[in-house]
């Protein structure tokens, strides 16, 4: 470390370090990744069994896609904070890095995990569920991208909250659902537009809501994280 290092650079380095720490420890245990992959496969096969060869309308199927993504996110994205509490490493992290850097690193990790999860779900979904076809790929891609960013952003701050509570597992979906509902309803309606083959301009309103949602959630998370994190 040199004395000339600016605060911004130091912050960026801390953020990167937190991210890399989580990434390496994830690659060692593969806890979240395997949980997510298995969850997505299980849920999609349940949907296939439930449909039993019957076709469902694209409207229903575009809603179902986000049901899978939401619950998969609920099973894996809390890990990054819960892990710190379980291993008793939270205190160490508090001492070594600024709260905002910890949050940014964890958010980055969840963004990567969330993006991977969404891509996996979408690929499997498009492959196995024959009734679901996307007509307007531009809307679909934008929805998937914004949706997984928003999902990761809201899940990260809720994960930070529940990591401090006693009943971590059950509380997570309960707390996340109301916060995520504006996002979920918007992405579901945008996915429907994509499945119906609407032109890109038709989904502008949805994208505006999604972008403002992401901005609002990330900003408040950064402002409030310090209070949750510090003992």
């Amino acid at each position, binding site marked *: 470390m040199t004395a000339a290092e600016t605060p911004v650079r130091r912050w960026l380095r801390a953020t990167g370090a937190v991210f890399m720490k989580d990434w390496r420890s994830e690659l060692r245990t593969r806890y979240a990744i395997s949980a997510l992959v298995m969850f997505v496969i299980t849920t999609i096969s349940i949907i296939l069994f439930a449909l039993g060869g019957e076709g469902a309308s694209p409207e229903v199927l575009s809603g179902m896609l986000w049901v899978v993504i939401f619950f998969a996110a609920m099973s894996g994205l809390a890990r990054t904070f819960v892990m710190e509490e379980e291993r008793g490493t939270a205190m160490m992290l508090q001492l070594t890095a600024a709260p905002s850097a910890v949050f940014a690193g964890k958010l980055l990790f969840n963004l990567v995990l969330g993006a991977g999860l969404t891509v996996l779900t979408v690929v499997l979904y498009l492959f196995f569920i024959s009734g679901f076809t996307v007509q307007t790929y531009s809307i679909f891609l934008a929805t998937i991208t914004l949706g997984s960013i928003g999902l990761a952003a*809201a899940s990260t*701050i*809720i994960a930070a*909250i*529940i990591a*401090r*509570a*006693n*009943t971590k597992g059950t*509380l997570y979906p*309960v*707390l996340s*659902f*109301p*916060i995520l*509902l*504006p996002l979920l*309803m918007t992405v579901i309606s945008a996915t429907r537009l994509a499945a119906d083959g609407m032109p890109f301009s038709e989904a502008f*309103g949805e994208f505006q*809501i999604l972008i403002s*949602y992401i901005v*609002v*959630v990330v900003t*408040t*998370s950064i402002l*409030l994280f310090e*209070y*949750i994190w510090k003992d």
Partner: protein
Amino acid sequence: MTLRISLGVLLTLVIVAAIGFPISASPRHWYEFPLIPGLEEKARLIFFHVPTAWLSVMAFFTSMVYGILYLRRRDPMDDISSSVAAGLGFLFCILATITGAIWAKFNWGSFWNWDPRETSIFVLLLIYGAYFSLRSAVDVEEKRATLSSVYSIIAAVTVPFFIFIMPRIMTGLHPGAKGDPDGAGPVIDFKMSPNMRVVFFASLIGFTGLFVWMFRLRVRTARLEYFEHAKG
């Protein structure tokens, strides 16, 4: 004391007027409400349903404001006020949901239709539920206060999407939604006659006073419980 008595008088007058005043097709007297086609006698609900919904939203923001104050000052009394406001908000939210659902049964044909307005009150209910489950899941007092304050703030910044924006931009059955033949916007602006407006605003003021009274009472008892608990 004066607050309680004047509230009692005001709300009695409101209830008598809202239930008792006749509705006629061509109002001649000051006490007759005009007939609104499609709503008829069911229009009276607005005097009770809207104030309860208004209170549940106001309580929600009161809870958030005390949450912010707690994070700034770390005063346990702020946390008490925050949770008391949330409790009252939950109560009024349930009342608004039930009165709305009964009205919807007679006006729209079923108790629940997932109209944007119904979705928004449902989300408010969920948030209150989540808030209390979070509170019950944390044992340490300070931690519980901090976490629930943070949660109520996060909820308060995302929920306006629902309560204020969505019902207005989405087509729905609820009066004042987009697609309403009389136009979107607050119902009071275009559907109410002057005498209805007087009763409506009196009811709104009365319910707000009711909230203030209940809030102060509950805060006082909750503080006593807190000190009792702290003593032994």
